[in-house]
Each structure stands twice: as structure tokens, then as C-alpha cells.
């Protein structure tokens, strides 16, 4: 099995006719964890949503391939089945559908008809992953995200990540609004996923989460594209100096880009 590869080339994305992402390039291989940082409104989440296929985001130029397959031609569910996962900043609530039913349907969607996961195996796996994330067993029978606190929703995203075992995950501001304990659970989940067959892009404003999940590369995004790339030390520098210093150094002026 060759290591998976997610390749994004010259990506341009518009939202409601407004150009947000302008020439975004990134190459992640299995086994790697990348962090994508940058100030508010530079298009980080737009990249994530466009890759997953959110209907509001229009890719106007460029390509995204997963193991050489053009995923931009795929429907959202096909992208997921191809091995992509997006932990969302604002997960939807689905009333009346239990977490367990939802996850089992999702897993079976990937496995295909005739190859469904045996119920006992599913229950055992879910129990184990929930224990690791220190989630109460009752979460299995609660309706998807309904009445969950912000932190519970984020943990639920990580639970889904662990259950679905994708090749690539994008975590879109999974750390926003999390206290330090919740942050640790999230990190524990992601670290448990680490392998040569799993790549991850962590989108964040803050360096904090990167104390717990060591990235191989850190990219800084401004005005719709990556402006600089470095190792974990880059994140630490940003934490100290903020984005303004970097902007001045790189000669970047603010434009009107806003996060959609």
C-alpha cells in the first residue's frame, strides 16, 4: 500500500461571486500532519469547505487530487468515501437520529452493500473510541449534536474521525472555544490516528493545540494563499510576534477578503 497523497494546486475559490482563495498550493502525504495558520478572514476555512465540496463554495480554478484522483468532480459523499474527512467548525444538529445510527450508516456507506460492519463489532469499536475520548456512553444514543455544548460537538467530530478512519482529515478550527481539557482529548484522538496511511491538516488561529499535536509543517495563509511555510518553530514565532510582524516582513497589505 503506497502512502496516500492529497495534492492541492493553484486552488481558487469564490463564495457568492466573491473571490476568497487565490492560488492555494499544498501537498500532504500519509504520515504527515500540517498546520494551516493565519489571521481571521484569510480563507482557511474556505479551503477546507471547498475541498469537502460544500455547495456554497465554487472552485473557479486549480485542482485537488487524492491519490491522483480528481476529487473536485466528485459529489460530497463520494469525496468522503474516497478517504476525505472534514471536522467542521459548526457541525449540524440532526434531530431524531442517534449518533450510533449515524455512524453505523456512515461506516456502512463506505464499506458498501453486502459488507456491512457486524453490529457487535461496531458497538465494541465505538465503546473503545468513546472511552479514549472520555465521552459518556450516553452519547451513542443521543441525537447527533442536538443539545451538545460547543466542546461536546468538537469531541463528537473527533469520535467520527476515529470511527471512519479516513486517509486525510482536515480539522477546521477544532480548537476554537475549547478549554484545555477538551483540547487534550482532541489531541489524544488525532495522535491515536497517526500512521503512514493518515495525513492531517489542522486549521487554527492559535499555537496552543500544536503543543499537543506536533505538526511536521506549519503554513501561514494570508489574502487567500500560503505566504510562508516552516516547521513547528514558525507557530511559536507567530504566537510571540503575532501576524502583524510577519505581514510587515513579507510586505503584505490587507485586502478585503473575508471568511465566508
Amino acid at each position: 500500500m503506497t502512502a496516500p497523497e492529497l495534492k492541492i494546486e493553484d486552488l481558487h475559490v469564490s463564495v457568492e461571486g466573491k473571490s476568497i482563495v487565490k492560488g492555494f498550493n499544498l501537498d500532504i502525504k500519509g504520515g504527515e500532519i500540517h498546520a494551516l495558520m493565519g489571521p481571521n478572514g484569510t480563507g482557511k476555512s474556505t479551503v477546507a469547505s471547498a475541498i469537502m465540496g460544500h455547495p456554497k463554495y465554487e472552485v473557479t480554478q486549480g485542482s485537488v487530487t487524492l491519490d491522483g484522483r480528481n476529487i473536485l468532480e466528485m459529489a460530497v459523499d463520494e469525496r468522503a468515501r474516497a478517504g476525505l474527512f472534514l471536522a467542521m467548525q459548526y457541525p449540524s444538529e440532526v434531530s431524531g437520529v442517534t449518533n450510533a445510527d449515524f455512524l453505523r450508516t456512515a461506516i456502512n456507506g463506505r464499506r458498501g452493500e453486502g459488507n456491512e460492519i457486524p453490529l457487535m463489532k461496531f458497538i465494541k469499536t465505538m465503546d473503545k473510541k468513546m472511552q479514549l475520548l472520555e465521552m459518556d456512553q450516553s452519547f451513542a444514543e443521543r441525537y447527533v449534536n442536538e443539545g451538545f455544548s460547543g466542546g461536546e460537538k468538537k469531541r463528537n467530530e473527533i469520535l467520527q474521525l476515529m470511527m471512519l478512519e479516513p486517509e486525510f482529515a482536515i480539522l477546521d478550527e477544532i480548537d476554537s472555544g475549547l478549554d484545555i481539557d477538551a483540547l487534550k482529548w482532541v489531541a489524544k484522538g488525532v495522535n491515536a490516528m497517526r500512521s503512514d496511511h493518515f495525513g492531517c491538516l489542522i486549521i487554527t488561529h492559535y499555537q496552543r493545540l500544536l503543543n499537543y499535536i506536533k505538526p511536521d509543517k506549519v503554513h501561514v495563509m494570508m489574502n487567500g494563499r500560503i505566504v510562508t511555510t516552516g516547521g513547528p518553530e514558525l507557530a511559536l514565532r507567530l504566537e510571540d510576534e503575532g501576524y502583524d510582524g510577519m505581514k510587515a516582513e513579507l510586505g503584505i497589505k490587507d485586502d478585503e477578503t473575508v471568511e465566508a
Partner: protein
Amino acid sequence: MSTQLKNLPLDAENIINFSSHRNEPKWFTNIRLKAFELAAKLPLPKPEKTRIDDWNFTDFRFDTKGTSVKSLNDLPEPVRQLLDETEQAGSVLIHHNSEPVFANLTEDLKNKGVIFTDLATAIQEHGDLVQKYYFKTDKWDKHKLTAIHAALINGGSFLYVPKNVQIETPIQAIYFQDASSSGLMAHTIVVCERGSSVTYVESYLSDSSVGSGAANLISEVFVGENARIKFGAVDHFSSGVVSYVSRKAKVEKDGSLQWALGQMNDGYTVSENDTNLEGDGSSVDTKVVSIGSGAQKQNFDNYIRHAGKATTSRLLVRGVQKDSAHSIFNAITKIEHGASKADGEQTQRVLMLSKDARGDANPILLIDEYDVIAGHAASVGRVDPAQLYYLMSRGISKEIAEKLIVEGFLEPVVDLLPIEGVKKQLSELIERKVG
């Protein structure tokens, strides 16, 4: 369904014969005859925005035979599935066409004075009790349909719980129609005296062998002082059956009532669900789900009247509309003058799954008192694209994602049904109707 027959194809003699075969007391036969006379004269009800003039409420066979069974295992499969396997000896009453075919009430409940029997038997053995409650939540001369019902009653159940008797295990009634062109006129009375409690679940189903027929159902529920009733129902008449379903309740001081109604008919339906919060401190929680499919036309009227002080009501109506189905949903919360500290909240949500379907939700608050809390919410919309995107982003196909969302939308009533078999029936009906 377009048979334009305004009047019953019968004469008074047919009714007298039918009544005497059933050994009915005079008072009951008299109501039949008076109602029969009025049925020809009274107008149809006028449900909001739904024309029912040409619906077949009158052309059916009302004297159809059922097959008695000694053991529950001899029941037709669709009926057997509704029973909890673990409760083979539970309290259950089964009607086949216009005859009761199986009845069981546990010894324990009999000893406590509980009565649970088909209406015909109840009229003979407990005539005074039946008379005390018969047509007390509504009048039989209200309109043509109530009159037809009173004239031709051919089924029904009577459940009476004396004061201070708590019944833990649900009590179940099942009506199964399979005779060609049959009409079911079932009248149900559920009474909980002061301080008692019960859970009652009724299921109606008909086989496609009925073809075109009619169902005219009235259930009357009496919640005594400080009593508690949970009333669950699943209606599933086949597409040729025109239904009038009326479920009405009166709640006394500090009594509480819960309705959990799964209205899954495949045919034209007019439904009225009324709760009269008569006593101070009484409360009702109503949850109703339905699916309109094919070329179905339906009208759902849910009415709650606050008459007592400090009365509380919660009303949740959820409907799914697909194909070219048309449904009207009316919710009325009425707070009478003097019902101070009343608190009434209603929500109606209609989910549209096709361009050709139509659904109207009309929220109505009628308030004649100052010191109250009342609220309403109503919406008609499509499946939320954000939810769809979320589920699909986990690898679930669009069709299955939609199905999950719709089934989840109707889950509130499934959740409340206390009998596993009936719960499963509703789940499967939802799955089939949505699918």
C-alpha cells in the same frame, strides 16, 4: 374515491336489525335511529382549506365478519407483529372487520376493577358506565360524519380504570380490516378515575383487499382529577379508505394527558384531535406526526382549550409531504377568560420532499385572558442543505441522508410509543412511506 354518494344506502330497518342482533339496550338503539335520520340532513364538517364534498364517507359495508382466534398465534401476520412477544398474556383487544376476535385482560387488573372490553360487550355489561361517557366530549349531531358514526357504530373499545389504580403495562387495542369495501365505525372510550393512571395504545390497519372503504373513528378520553393517561395511536388505512378520525379528551383538575399519534394513512383523511383542559392545573402534551404521499389529501386539526387556571399545553405537529400530496395543518390554542396562568405552546413543522406536494401550517392563538403565556411557531420548508451536507460529508449518499433526516424529523412520536411492536410498526411505516 370520487363516489358522490351523500347519504347512506340503508333504511331504518337495517339499523334496527343490526342493533337487535347485538342485543343493544333501547337508549343505544334510539341514538342510532335519531342519528340515522339526522345523517341525511346534517352537512359535512368544513375543514379549513380542504374540500371533502366528494369524498366517500357513506358507501361501505358496515356489517362485515371477523375470524375469532383462540390463540394469538392464529392472528394474521400484520396483527401479530404489533404485539410484544414478551407480553403474550398482556391486556389486549383485537378487532377483525366489525367483530371483536380476541380479548384478554390480566387477572390482576380484573381484580382491581379495571374494565377493558369491546364496546358492544361494554354496552351490555356496563351500560350505565358507557352511557355516562358516550358522546360526552363531542355531540353525535355535530355534523354528518358524527351522525353516520353514531348510527352505524360497529366496533370500539371500552377501558375503565377505577380511582387510584396505577397500571404499569400498556393496554392495547388493534383493529384490522380486510373485508372488501368494509367500513369501520369504531367508538373508543378511555376513562381514568381520580388518581389513576394508564397507557393505552390503539393501532388501526387495513389490507389493500378492502379496496374502497371508509373509517369513521371517534375516541373519547376522560382524565379524572389527578389522573394520568398516555394515549398512543398508529393509524394506517390503505389508500382506498377514506378516514374521519376524531380523538377528543377532557382533563380534570391536576390531570395530565399525553397524546402520541402516528397518522400514517395512505388514503384521504380528516383528523380532529381536541383536548379540553377543564380542570385547574391540568396539562396536555400532544405530539402528532404524519406523512402525505401519492395523491393523498389530508386535513389535521389539533385543538387545545384552556379553561382551568394554570393549565399547560404543549403541541408538536410534524408532517412530511411527498409526491403530490396535499395537507392542511391547523393548530388552535384557545385560552378562555378566567384561565389565568395558562401556558400554551404550539409548534408545527412541515417538511416538503417534492415540488408537487403542498402543505399549509396555520397556527392560531385565541386568547381571552391577560395573565397567560402563549406561543406558536410554524414552518413549511425543505430538507436543510446544511444537514444534508454534514451527513454526506461522512460518506452517506444523498438518498440515505435525506431518509435519515426525515425519519429523525418524525422520531418524536416513535420515541413515545410504549409497545415495541407498535413502535416498530410506526418506524417501518415511516420508512416505507418515505422510501
